[in-house]
């Protein structure tokens, strides 16, 4: 391999001074391990690193992107409306609520745990909002806030039993799954369903579209500029600090890919016939993703979540309050679960006894896993909630459009989930043999 080379002495200046050569009877010590793979500058180095990573089992989001392209091609051939504006908008809107719940699940999976209660918590969230706002006449924003906070409280309760009492998270959240869906039923009382008032905030969650085309293009432009700026600032700071930085070619390539994706989506939502513009739900979902990704990668709390997921004992000895991290993550999952429940209520026209029931839980967990977050803890990205949920919703949308029966849809979604977990397990094994896990 051409990128193996790194000759002794060229990389660092210090070692000769720091390690007296007299103690080393052998040849002078190479400053850097000679087996190290050093990336070449420029596009070629980028490509060779990419192929090496893929061979080493670090697939990242690659399987999902390939899967999405396959899905798009297959369904577009079956039904030429699959990539139409209304279909894409549908996928975006249906992805949003469940996707926000999946973000919470990503954090729980990063801890190496599971939250089976997220669907029931969503149902309770929707019920709390409906009972307070519609039945008791509370201010709708206050009702929304109380609903989301009640999700947080339920999540924190799971976290407490898991972290402080030591009950396995699987069992605690299974109890929550049963218990909270009972609570939801009880709160809905005899009515069975409480309709969303027309024009209310919750109705708008999934039914409001920014019809002004400037919204879609503007958001795409802001996203691309912010992304490029963050890459450029980062690589300039790294260069001034004397650290290896991303080559400009990589910055350009990454920005170009993000720009194409953003503007194609904005175009499809805005331009074709029947387009309604940018859905509010998608904007909220993206906002949650960006904030959550920032928390996961750039804050101490995010670092602590990864540490606890990787090795709880090491985290404890490093002075991290492991119990607090665990409770916080479960509270976060409950919060986002209840928030997602409002989206589901909005889509189904009101809070019902079945909000968050059925396959909601499975879709949410499947999305996080399909998107590439490991079930074994410590490895994953917040963005996997978006990618995985788009895969699931695209399949459902496509199967609906070609008139496939519900039974078949379940089987196909199940097969996709299995495929995702197989890819996760196999790539972990490959990473182990390649010494990267």
């Amino acid at each position, binding site marked *: 391999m051409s990128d193996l080379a790194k000759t002794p002495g060229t990389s660092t200046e210090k070692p000769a001074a720091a390690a007296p050569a007299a103690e080393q009877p052998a040849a002078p010590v190479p400053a850097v391990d000679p087996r190290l793979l050093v990336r070449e500058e420029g596009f070629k180095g980028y490509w060779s690193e990419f192929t090496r990573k893929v061979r080493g089992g670090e697939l990242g989001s690659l399987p999902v992107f390939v899967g999405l392209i396959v899905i798009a091609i297959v369904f577009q051939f079956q039904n030429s409306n699959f990539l139409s504006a209304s279909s894409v908008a549908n996928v975006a809107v249906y992805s949003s609520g469940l996707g926000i719940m999946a973000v919470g699940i990503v954090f729980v999976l990063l801890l190496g745990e599971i939250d089976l209660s997220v669907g029931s918590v969503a149902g309770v969230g929707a019920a709390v909002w409906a009972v307070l706002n519609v039945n008791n006449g509370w201010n709708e924003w206050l009702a929304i806030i109380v609903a989301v906070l009640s999700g947080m409280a339920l999540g924190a309760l799971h976290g407490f039993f898991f972290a402080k009492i030591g009950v396995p998270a699987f069992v605690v959240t299974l109890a929550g799954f049963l218990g909270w869906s009972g609570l939801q039923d009880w709160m809905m009382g005899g009515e069975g369903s409480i309709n969303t008032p027309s024009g209310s905030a919750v109705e708008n969650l999934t039914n409001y579209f920014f019809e002004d085309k400037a919204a879609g293009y503007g958001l795409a432009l802001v996203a691309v500029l912010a992304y490029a700026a963050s890459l450029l600032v980062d690589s300039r700071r790294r260069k001034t600090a004397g650290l290896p930085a991303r080559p400009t070619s990589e910055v350009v390539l990454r920005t170009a890919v993000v720009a194409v994706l953003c503007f194609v989506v904005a175009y499809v939502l805005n331009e074709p016939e029947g387009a309604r513009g940018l859905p509010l739900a998608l904007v909220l979902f993206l906002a949650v993703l960006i904030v959550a990704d920032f928390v996961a990668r750039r804050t101490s709390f995010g670092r602590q979540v990864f540490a606890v997921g990787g*090795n709880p004992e090491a985290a404890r000895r490093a*002075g991290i309050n492991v119990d607090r991290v665990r409770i916080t993550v479960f509270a976060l999952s409950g919060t986002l679960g209840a928030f997602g429940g409002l989206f589901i209520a909005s889509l189904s026209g009101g809070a019902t006894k079945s909000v968050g029931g059925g396959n909601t839980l499975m879709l949410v967990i499947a999305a996080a896993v399909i998107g590439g977050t490991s079930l074994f*803890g*410590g490895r994953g990205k917040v963005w996997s909630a978006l990618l995985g949920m788009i895969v699931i919703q695209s399949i459902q949308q496509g199967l609906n459009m070609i008139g496939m029966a519900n039974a078949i849809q379940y089987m196909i979604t199940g097969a996709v989930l299995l495929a995702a977990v197989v890819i996760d397990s196999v790539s972990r094994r490959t990473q182990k043999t390649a010494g990267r896990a």
Partner: protein
Amino acid sequence: MSATPVLALRGISKRFGAVQALTDVDLEIHPGEVVALVGDNGAGKSTLVKTISGVHPIDEGAIEWEGETVRINRPNDAQELGVATVYQDLALCDNLDVVANLFLGSELRKASVLDEIAMEKRAKELLDTLSIRIPSVRIPVASLSGGQRQVVAIARALIGDPKVVILDEPTAALGVEQTAQVLDLVERLRERGHGVILISHNMADVRAVADKVAVLRLGRNNGVFDVASTSHEEIIAAITGATDNAVTRRQARTDTKEDAK
């Protein structure tokens, strides 16, 4: 070497229920000094170290830090004083990269956002001054070898610039080359003026790097020896608690054989 020890234990006792784990133990650590703590299994080495690192508060006696009497009741107390402990079972997070592991629990932040660049820079400087060679500071610890992981664990203890570093069996389970690297690192800690407590069962390692050997036997002091002027046999005798036992008899036998040759 300064006259005041950085850390001094005076008459430490510790009971666990019916077991008197430590009885009236004294120990002194000076800056720039490597003290090996040796003793048979169950002699109280680990308990003594845990009293210093705050895992087990002491029952009787006093701990003096730079001449002042202090209380160490929690691990945080020890860390705040400047005691860093490298545990036998490494305690690194496999999924995090070297930089993240080095700064885990004490991340550098800028307006409450992780300052990755400052951390990476300091990590590189620290690893350079310790002459630690690892492929990259941005690869997961999982892909490092056992020796590399051990030196990362030791480097991790130095992030807070401690005055006393406790190493619990740092060379157990390491190969020849890796052991040498760790011993080099211990010497560099001494050069930088850290006081080092080294727990080891390996007499060769102890004699290679330690200045003094403190022997514990059945929870009591059984002598502090100057490594340069003490023979291997004297230390073994102190550890086993007798001058006539299987070890010394065997030693005498092999010596006479060598004389006969």
